[in-house]
């Protein structure tokens, strides 16, 4: 394999990892409260800036990562408790508009506090070296992004499929009333879904900053929207689908830009959203979901 193609594949996998991290939380939250959460992308921005603050204070990276997880989880739980819980039971459109309002509020608060000036976000120099793999090489940053994402997704699947909390989350997502009748305190289960999903998005923010080198208060908008596309590709509400959708989107986007003549590079997002429209037309339930049932 030529170095160029290999580099594009690694790049696509890294970008796909970031999309997958954001999309999984987006999908978990939709699965359990049937809420298309457009404020989810802003957790990416919150994660990136809380990482930047820790690095500026000289906190070591592993602790920074832990801090970002906690900030993301707390931010997600706060949004759920303060805004979304008060709207439970309202028509779906109301909830959807509320998420847009939360997103706008977060973005503009960040703009006022942090100003719109982009800031440099640099991983340590050691992270930016290239690691030779046989005859080709990949950047350590991309390798770390891909590796950390795999670890986080593995932990998530263990939680969702092997713990009492995870079983209760899946039960609540499928049938909220029946779960309540089993003694599940559904508000706590929903809170857990927000905490886990938001923490993953915040970690994606840290990695996003490291990969692209600059962050600004509006940086969450694009990942939020792409996570939505990834969810539609994989089937909204399915965690595995969101993960695969994220990787497919990341790879497709990078390969589209990398392998076609440079004149198409500017059409990157056009391509992504055409993909969205195409999938909505052909298989609206997503590529990896066999059928969709409304919750009883």
């Amino acid at each position, binding site marked *: 394999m030529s170095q160029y193609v290999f580099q594009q594949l690694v790049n696509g996998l890294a970008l796909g990892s970031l999309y997958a991290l954001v999309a999984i939380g987006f999908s978990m939250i939709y699965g359990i409260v049937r809420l298309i959460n457009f404020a989810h992308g802003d957790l990416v921005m919150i994660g990136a800036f809380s990482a930047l603050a820790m690095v500026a204070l000289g906190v070591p990276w592993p602790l920074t990562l832990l801090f970002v997880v906690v900030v993301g989880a707390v931010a997600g739980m706060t949004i759920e408790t303060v805004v979304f819980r008060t709207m439970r039971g309202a028509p779906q459109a109301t909830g959807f508009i509320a998420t847009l309002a939360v997103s706008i509020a977060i973005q503009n608060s960040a703009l006022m506090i942090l100003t719109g000036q982009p800031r440099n976000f640099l991983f340590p120099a050691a992270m930016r070296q290239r690691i030779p793999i046989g005859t080709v090489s990949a950047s350590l940053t991309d390798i770390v992004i891909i590796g950390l994402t795999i670890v986080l997704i593995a932990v998530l699947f263990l939680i969702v499929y092997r713990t009492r909390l995870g079983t209760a989350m899946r039960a609540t997502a499928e049938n909220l009333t*029946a779960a309540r009748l089993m003694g599940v*305190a559904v508000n706590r289960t929903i809170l857990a879904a927000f905490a886990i999903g938001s923490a993953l998005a915040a970690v994606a923010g840290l990695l996003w900053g490291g990969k692209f080198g600059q962050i600004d208060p509006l940086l969450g908008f694009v990942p939020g929207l792409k996570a939505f596309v990834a969810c539609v590709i994989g089937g909204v509400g399915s965690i595995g689908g969101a993960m695969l959708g994220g990787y497919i989107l990341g790879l497709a986007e990078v390969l589209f830009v990398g392998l076609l003549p440079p004149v198409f590079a500017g059409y990157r997002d056009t391509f992504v959203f055409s993909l969205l429209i195409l999938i909505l037309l052909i298989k609206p339930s997503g590529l990896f979901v066999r059928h969709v049932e409304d919750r009883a």
Partner: protein
Amino acid sequence: MLEIRGLNVFRGATHVLKDVSFDVRTGEIAALIGANGAGKSTTLQTLSGLLRPRSGIAVMREGEAVVDLTRAAPEKIVRAGLVHCPEGRQIFQSLTVAENLAMGAYARIDRASITASIDEVHELFPILKERALFAGGTLSGGEQMMLAIARALLAAPKLLLLDEPSLGLAPKFVEMIFEVIVALKARGVTLLLVEQNAAMALEIADRAYVMENGRIALAGTGQELIENDRVRRAYLGVVE
């Protein structure tokens, strides 16, 4: 065990339960019969805390414990021993049979006694052991009903509310379900049974209530209601 007085429940603007009063005594089978839309399921949903009454009293007494069902949250009510097996089975289709049973025991803590209860329901419904690792949605209708009842039993009910357990089942399954209900009574579980199949329900009921348009229209022992002319014409299909 269960005392209900003057219960009024609304769904949106609709007045569904009107001044409903009835009792269920410890150790007996009580049946609630009536036409579609009479308010039977609404009654059960109110008792399990899913719906809140506008007014009235609903109290469960279990030994020393007194639970106000009009205020307690569903998860508290389950832990107090009132378990509601809802209409239409409502098992978790995407969870395995074993996971469904684990969800039934969600409110319990003691692992050893949960394992013992799982063995018990496996004995009662051997098919659930065979299918433990299959998704709930792959079971037949009758098997899903068994799973729904088994799941409710894993919550260790002292008072079990069963909503239409025979609905849509083949006759051999209906008979089996009714046998299980009688066996549960023998084991000391108190039951409140909502049924369309009035004949079978009245036959096993110690006490029965007929619900019409959100009110309790008739009350008596199962035998009294079987012999009641109005019940015979309206619910037992007897033409005279």
